[in-house]
């Protein structure tokens, strides 16, 4: 790869190591979404459509601000609006920009059976390479955040790329560029964690004592993080997973059991071969034919 920022550290359905000599010593990247600063303007959604040349169906009004209704192959990011009545009886409008979390331990990549259809760059971005995608939907099965969508048009999987194309040439993702309030910031993961710590401190001083950073350790941390006023209850934010991790079922399905099963299949065939070599075929001889003929005559 010519571009250092596009060095691949992990590749789906690939059992040999990826090129590993160059490392991202400068650190990985991260997008920080500060829900306390978000005004729900959807500029990020529009910027995403614009940069990525996506046009979702206009759809219909479902009685809320959320539009479109869900993520799709054409909508890689979506403002999810939740109304929460806090214990004091006040209404809180919790708005969360949903999209791929770019897990350090991506369930989609683990589940994918197509070599190179999902890659993880050294900068932390998890990207789908649609030309290698076979459309099986295993990424959807593997994802702990319900993010990938299979297109009805071409049967390929799509999701947020964290604008890997922009990041590769030193630009910030399109959604970051468009955000008018500074709710979206982008930088090294370390910087984003520091920035989040300041934001959390500020929120705590304003009475949000459970404010915190959402960087779930169950998936090794993510390269899209949230500052939440209620970090103790992520599920308030339109069902953000409180403790996401790759499902045990997916681990059992895609983990060490697969090479083990493969070995047992090979061993079965090998055992058969050595049975042939050591014991040999069970053959009928003339004596058997004679015994059969005699038995038949008797009856």
């Amino acid at each position, binding site marked *: 790869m010519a571009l250092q920022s596009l060095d691949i550290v992990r590749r789906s*359905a*690939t*059992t040999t190591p990826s090129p590993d000599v160059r490392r991202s010593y400068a650190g990985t990247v991260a997008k920080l979404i500060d829900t306390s600063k978000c005004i729900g303007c959807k500029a990020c959604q529009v910027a995403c459509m614009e940069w990525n040349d996506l046009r979702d169906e206009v759809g219909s009004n479902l009685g809320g601000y959320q539009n479109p209704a869900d993520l799709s192959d054409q909508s890689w990011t979506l403002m999810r609006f939740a109304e929460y009545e806090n214990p004091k009886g006040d209404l809180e409008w919790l708005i969360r920009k949903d999209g791929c979390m770019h897990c350090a331990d991506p369930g989609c990549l683990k589940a994918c*059976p*197509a*070599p190179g259809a999902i890659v993880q760059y050294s900068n932390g971005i998890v990207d789908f390479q649609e030309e*290698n*995608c*076979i*459309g*099986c*939907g*295993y990424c*959807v*099965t593997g994802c702990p955040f*319900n993010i990938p969508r*299979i297109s009805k048009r071409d*049967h390929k999987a799509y999701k947020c790329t964290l604008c890997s194309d922009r990041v590769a040439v030193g630009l910030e993702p399109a959604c970051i560029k468009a955000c008018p309030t500074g709710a979206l910031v982008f930088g090294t993961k370390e910087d984003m964690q520091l920035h989040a710590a300041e934001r959390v401190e500020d929120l705590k001083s304003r009475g949000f004592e459970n404010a915190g950073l959402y960087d779930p350790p169950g998936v090794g941390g993510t390269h899209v993080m949230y500052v939440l006023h209620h970090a103790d209850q992520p599920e308030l934010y339109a069902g953000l997973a409180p403790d996401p991790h790759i*499902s045990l*079922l*997916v681990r*059992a*399905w895609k983990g060490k*059991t*697969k*090479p083990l*099963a*493969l070995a*047992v*299949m090979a061993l*079965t*065939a090998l055992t*058969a071969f050595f*049975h*042939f070599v050591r*014991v*040999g*075929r*069970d*053959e*009928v*001889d*003339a004596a*058997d*034919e*004679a*015994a*059969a*003929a005699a*038995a*038949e005559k008797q*009856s």
Partner: protein
Amino acid sequence: MSEPASPRLLERHTSAERTTHWTLALAFVLAALSGLALFHPALFWLSELFGGGPWTRILHPYVALIAVVVFLKFAADLWDDARLTPADRQWLRQMQDVIHNREDRLPEVGRYNAGQKLLFWVLFAGMLGLLLSGIVMWRSWFGLYFSVGLIRVASLVHAVCAFVLVCGIIVHVYSAFWIKGSIEGMVRGTVTAGWAWKHHRAWFRQVTHDAHPRTRPN
């Protein structure tokens, strides 16, 4: 008294049974190869046999469905013959004699031996598991009907059933080669009387005593 020039032949499988068996075999092998392509990266190259990854994903469920439908016909034919008897249990206990070709020590075997019957039941359970889990996993048709939790369970069940079935079929294919004359039984439809006497003596007695024996002259 002179020996006949070639041994007398008994009909083992009718042309209809052979057709069912080989249709099932073909569909199963194609389903297994396309499935194994997605089972582990080391076998992804098998997808080239089907025209690449996307074609493998598209074809696999349809081919597998053909296998399941044909298997239903197959299972209906075999159902009565596949019941395990006390003699079968004895046969299974003497696995060492089975493996070392010491058939003279084994109980007399009917149309099918206990190994064949077990394979049948493994196939039956496996096919059922693959069918049900496969429907849940088939996104082009059923993607919207099942929760991700159920799809995860199905994915695991599908892989486990497929693994058991592939191992079972490897044993089946080798056994057909091992017990010389069996492949002819499924290809030409006939076995020699000596073969039936040696490997399926109870069945031999049955067909040679029968008022309407399924036999065929030389």
